[in-house]
């Protein structure tokens, strides 16, 4: 049977097609604001702590070095704190040593796919929560400068791997006593080691890492080793959000701990 579409009489206006006229910004009844508010508070506390830590000079309590100041690359660093004994930045560099390297981990977290979600939601309210209207009139996302620069993430990932390895090296060196003998296990060494593991786990679980291992391939079967790596990274990647938070707090705790030991505030045996 042939179907014929019923034609609209010429003089009848086309029905207007519009969205439901609902003025409320959201009809959600749960506490949707709680999550972005907590995220905002947590990220702000990290920023404030980081700012203080950069300018705090007590970053070395032999054999511990505070993660926010590692690697120490300036001549102003105490002898034992220097990375591999090197001080490529000479006397002329008088600013805090942390400033030299913090750009890498900071850039890594700033362009991280998870942190992007969290600060777009909690700082920029774009959107604050799902189904809640955002306050901005225009939106162009990551299509143009400056947000198109988020695509640089993988380069920060390369840098973050380097920093992660250095933190691991520092954590291993922490298993020595004040005279440099191995086998000394202080609470600080354990804290630094746990922190290094969490930082590495967060770094490796990165979406860019997942892409580099094998995500960019269409034929896993032709690259069995890379496929194995991808499978491993994918498992970690599912926990990227949790690792981002845990490693953020662990690095703050580890950093604060070393500074408190350096200041003499924490002074019990096996500190």
């Amino acid at each position, binding site marked *: 049977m042939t179907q014929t579409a019923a034609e609209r009489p010429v003089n009848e206006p086309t029905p207007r097609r*519009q969205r439901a006229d609902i003025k409320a910004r959201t*009809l959600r009844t749960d506490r949707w604001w709680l999550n972005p508010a907590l995220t905002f508070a947590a990220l702000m506390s990290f920023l404030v702590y980081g700012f203080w830590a950069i300018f705090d000079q007590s970053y070395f309590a032999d054999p511990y070095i505070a993660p926010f100041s590692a690697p120490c690359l300036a001549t102003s660093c105490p002898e034992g704190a220097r990375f591999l004994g090197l001080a490529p930045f000479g006397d002329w560099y008088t600013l805090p040593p942390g400033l030299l390297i913090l750009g890498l981990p900071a850039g890594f977290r700033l362009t991280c796919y998870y942190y992007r979600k969290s600060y777009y939601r909690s700082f920029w309210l774009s959107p604050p929560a799902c189904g809640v209207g955002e306050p901005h009139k225009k939106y162009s996302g990551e299509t143009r400068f400056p947000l198109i620069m988020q695509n640089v993430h993988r380069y920060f990932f390369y840098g973050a791997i380097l920093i992660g390895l250095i933190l691991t090296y520092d954590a291993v060196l922490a298993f020595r006593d004040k005279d440099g003998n191995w086998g000394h296990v202080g609470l600080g060494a354990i804290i630094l080691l746990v922190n290094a593991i969490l930082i590495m786990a967060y770094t490796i679980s990165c979406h860019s890492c997942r892409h580099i291992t094998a995500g960019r391939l269409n034929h896993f079967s032709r690259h069995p080793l890379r496929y194995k790596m991808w499978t491993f990274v994918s498992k970690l990647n599912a926990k990227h959000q949790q690792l981002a938070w845990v490693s953020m707090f662990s690095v703050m705790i580890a950093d604060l701990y070393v500074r408190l030991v350096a200041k003499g505030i924490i002074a019990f045996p096996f500190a």
Partner: protein
Amino acid sequence: MGYKAKFRVWRGEAGEGALEDFVVEVNEGEVVLDVIHRLQATQAPDLAVRWNCKAGKCGSCSMEINGKPRLGCMARMSTFTEEETITVTPMRTFPVIKDLVTDVSFNYEKAREIPSFTPPKGVAPGEYRMQQVDVERSQEFRKCIECFMCNNVCHVIRDHEENKQAFAGPRFLMRIAELDMHPYDVEDRQNSAQDEHGLGYCNITKCCTEVCPEHIKITDNALIPMKERVVDRRYDPLVWLGNKIFRRTKEKTPKA
């Protein structure tokens, strides 16, 4: 045990309308769609609602329940308290035809803009040979039931209607990712994802993943991998250099 629930349902045509209050009976084991049907049967015979399978597999009864996009047939009444008022509205991003029924043709238009699966020349259907591991990733995206709740919740078009022209929405960016990851597809999906389908608009706030009734990891497994592929193609000087030095062709090479 049954009780009387307070419902507020948006009623209107072509955009104009208002929330209407109802008190309606609810019995044990029911879902929101059952209650909407009871409203139709007892108090509002002209209430329009689109539905079909009642099993969360056809994607017809997408609506917003207390402001959250949900399938009416999968929203259990037992998850609400007996005292609370349940607000049911049509999907906000799409124009309303009547009551809870929206015109979702935006999605069909966007679907048509994506070139279909394009095998290499000289390979006939029936000659495709691929390993399970090579197609596994794309198979997750095939679970999509096209309820369009991801496109509805995405703030890029939900809060900015003017972006509808430029942005295909998570559902169709996922479709592009599915084809781009296919071992036998040779069409250039990466440039078009960025230039024609608005992948750059996505700011990965993951609402699409949150509302997906099939629990597809849209953001982590489709949108971000697609963004990374676009970076390879457009923004990474090292990849560009590597392609030049090792004379990698841009064309995908499907071999079994």
